[in-house]
């Protein structure tokens, strides 16, 4: 039922994602559900840091986000993966939680090229270390 129940997605969402993926124009893009459509929230320049990304997540409202995560492996090799984050803080309204949970699956499938997925409900789950563990 998750796949069937999906909120319509604004075209700009996929467009921005492609720019992040192919042209690396952004470090991250966040998405939100507004007037029962998924729209682009905000985006970070390629130079943005991880902290900038965390700051872009509101404390009490859910968001979806994609993040172009780069790290260095033990033997000094640079790698990168695109991480999809579902940000649903515990303090969000229950209706919001539900809406984001049920629309996620379909939305994620529209963004072709996601390698890693993270579900986060508090800030301890959006830390660089968590991302690195997940990617390795």
């Amino acid at each position: 039922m998750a796949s069937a129940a999906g909120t319509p997605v604004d075209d700009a969402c996929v467009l921005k994602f492609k720019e992040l993926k192919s042209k690396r124009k952004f470090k991250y893009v966040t998405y939100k559900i507004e007037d029962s459509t998924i729209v682009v929230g905000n985006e970070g320049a390629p130079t943005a840091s991880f902290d900038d990304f965390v700051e872009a997540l509101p404390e009490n409202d859910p968001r979806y986000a994609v993040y172009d995560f780069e790290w260095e492996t033990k033997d000094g090799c640079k790698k990168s993966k695109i991480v999809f984050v579902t940000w649903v803080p515990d303090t969000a309204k229950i209706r919001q939680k539900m809406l984001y949970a049920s629309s996620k699956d379909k939305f994620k499938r529209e963004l072709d090229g996601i390698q890693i997925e993270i579900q986060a409900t508090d800030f301890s789950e959006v830390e660089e270390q968590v991302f690195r563990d997940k990617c390795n």
Partner: protein
Amino acid sequence: MYGGDEVNAIVIDLGASAVKAGYAGEESPKVHFPSCVGAITRDKDAAEAKANGGAGDARDVEMAEAGADASTTPKKESDAGSKSKANGSDATRDLYVGHFALNYRRENMEVVSPFDEETGLLSDWDLVENIWRHTLTDRLHIDPTEHPVLLAEPNFNSKECREKSLEILFETFQPPAVFLAKNACLSSYSAGRPTSLVLDVGYKSTVAAAVHDGYLLQKSVSRSRLGGEILTDCMQRSVESKGVNVRPRYAFKRTESKQNKGTFDVKDLDDYKGTTTESYHRWSVEQIVSDLKETVCRASENVFNEEEHANIPTVAYELPDGTEIQVGSDRFKVPEILFNPGLVQTFPGAEAIANPGGLPMQSVTSLVMESIARVDVDVRKELYNGIILAGGSSMLPNVRERLEREVLEQAPGQARVKVIASQNVMERKFGVWIGGSILASLGSFQQCWMSKQEYEEKGASLIHLKAP
């Protein structure tokens, strides 16, 4: 396909101990009443005799509580729905659904449950139908033909049960559309985690189930006999072993003393003896002990130890008849059963606890571990990180913290363990219902309904495709 923006769907969660129902899109259920039903079986002769005499019933009506909501007063012979053939024999039974109807003691009234003792699934469809009718017509006051209905169903529901539910709903109430959703999926949605492990500590049993991207992983479902019923039962045994007699509300009359304002006289009523059924007595006492349990019990932070807890300050609780009891270490010992089921044996007479389904007496922690072990290795990490605690019996304080600690001890080293439980009492208690409420009101969900037309064309088995 069933569509339209204003659907006004009804969400019904028929649980082992209580029915929760209301309009989709609202934050809490409008209706909440026990899911067991009062039944008086009359054989044919008696029914005829009563029709002639009719004295017994006139008295019933007279004595019904004045404060009782008119809509919940049980219907008498005039309504064919509440009178039905029992077990295909000549006997008929009058059913009394709802809190008020049940709280009033009637001669020879048995308390029966629509669930099968062995499977934990719905089996007495006659009762189910009456519960649904009571919900839709008597309590919500709606015309069922105008509202689609979303039913929450047990994670381990059988195909036959699902089809039977649909048949009865469509044939009897004729709603425009119906959908069935698994409890665990609804809980995971209402917590905002489409991938999670849901531990539902219910009344008759506890169920752990993994949900992945909104779908239940059937092989992960594991069940234990533990639940609110056993905890209440042990609480009662412990109280009674101390010489306290828990008097059900119908067995006495409590009035303010005329001479001494502020004090109460308690008078035993004798006329109830002999005509009250065993099951009704048990139900009435259970209501009281259950409240006692919810008021005083809390899970211990570490493994419970009788000696260590012997010096715990006691807590006072006043029974309805005014008897004050002191509860000491049992406050911690009773909830400890969830984590250490072996403790049940230490309560006097506990061998008698019924377990017809043959479910294992498994601790909640091992249930979680077992369920996680049954799913794919790739998903396990994410499940450890999103264990959702649901169900009425998980409401006792400290259960969340204790579970988190125990799972952390047993989980593989690199796993991050997080047990999620809403702080809001309503969200916890009605989690499944709220999940259904929001799901059924989402604009994008409306294409998922199974409509009456589809039922008529393709039959009940279509539901397995529509709602896997």
